[in-house]
């Protein structure tokens, strides 16, 4: 029971803090789940994040797996509701009076001001996952060389041309299966 309350508290707060999308709350989600509540290890958290990349729809659906690991089926359902309901309610309310500020120079200021915060938080999300998935000091140098190569290749390909990211995720998995088994 206590666990369910904690789960709802953690994910409902993350829901309304997700400024500019899910990546922005990854650092705090990882910290809450791994360090504060010790629900999962850092590697497990990263693995579950990877599972999210293999499934369609919003890439933060993986929160339901965290809920399941902590408190079974009720945990899975409650975490999903806690993570989506608050932000959806908020955007519903804001959508109602957004047009009221049509043409207001302040609306523009809010958007321009929030952009650097969003990018800083996204960068910290990349860092939070990359610290386990790309650079992992508990693994060999060989292992790290391969994961760094996968990460940088995917980034470079996506920046140079328009490729379906799902394809690159699958290629990453195939390269991992081939090269990381013995590394």
């Amino acid at each position, binding site marked *: 029971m206590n666990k369910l309350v904690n789960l709802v508290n953690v994910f409902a707060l993350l*829901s*309304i*803090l*997700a400024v*500019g*999308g899910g990546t922005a*709350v990854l*650092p*705090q989600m990882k*910290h809450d789940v791994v360090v504060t509540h010790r629900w999962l290890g850092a590697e*497990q958290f990263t*693995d579950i*994040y*990877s*599972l999210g*990349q*293999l*499934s369609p*729809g*919003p890439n*933060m*659906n993986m929160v*339901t*797996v965290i809920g399941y690991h902590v408190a079974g089926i009720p945990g899975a359902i409650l975490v999903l509701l806690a993570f*989506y309901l608050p*932000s*959806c309610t908020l*955007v*519903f309310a*804001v*959508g109602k009076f*957004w047009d009221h500020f049509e043409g*207001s*120079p*302040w609306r*523009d*200021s809010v958007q321009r*001001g929030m952009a*650097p915060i969003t*990018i*800083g*938080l*996204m960068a*910290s*999300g990349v860092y939070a*996952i990359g610290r386990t*998935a790309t650079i992992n000091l508990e693994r060999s140098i060989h*292992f790290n060389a391969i994961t760094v190569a996968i*990460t940088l290749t*995917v980034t470079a390909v*996506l920046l140079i041309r328009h490729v379906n*990211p799902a*394809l*690159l*995720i699958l290629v*990453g998995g*195939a390269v*991992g*299966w081939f090269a990381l*088994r013995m590394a």
Partner: protein
Amino acid sequence: MNDAPTKAPNVSLTKLFGVFLYIGATSFGGGVVAYLQEHLVIRQHWLDDDHFLAALEIGQTVPGLISTNVSVIVGNRLRGVAGSIAAVAGMTLPGAIIVFILGLLYTRFKSDPEVAAVLNGVGAAAVGLILAVTVQFGRREISKWHDLVILIPAFVLVGIFHISLVPVLVVLAPIAIQLNRPDRKELAAYHAQQAAYHAQLAGHHEEVAARHSAADASAGTPS
């Protein structure tokens, strides 16, 4: 179907749910916004580009996932509250069920070295994906040096020192908005425009009131 629907078209809740369910089940690899645009604007003609971009603008500014935020707004435009609920449920359920099943398989097979190796490769690729998205967004949005005064502290406080997002946003957001505040000319023009609008509105109200009292007077007996 006309080219620029200004009023929301008639869409049944079942159809609305079905289309979002399809998007939710097929939008692999992130970038759900592109899938939404493809289906809602190009295939179904439920919105024109302007309405979609307006929904996207709100979805990006308000906290929450951009894909679910846009679903809420589009669902509401088409079918009100029920539409929002149907859109978000359709958008999230397929992926949630699939990732849940993957999670069960993960619990069972995570000690298998081959499974672990595949997941490690997927994880490294996923970092590459969100890094590319971050770089693209940064290239588009960051133009002034003073943006870095906000960006770097946001990264260091949250990413390195694990300070909670609440205090970080409470401190940084007002500073960031203040740094980007509209200049005096813009504000003055906006206020003048607002004042003119209100004056026009007041004039209109007076005119209507005058017309009503005139009508009452001519009717002789006020009801």
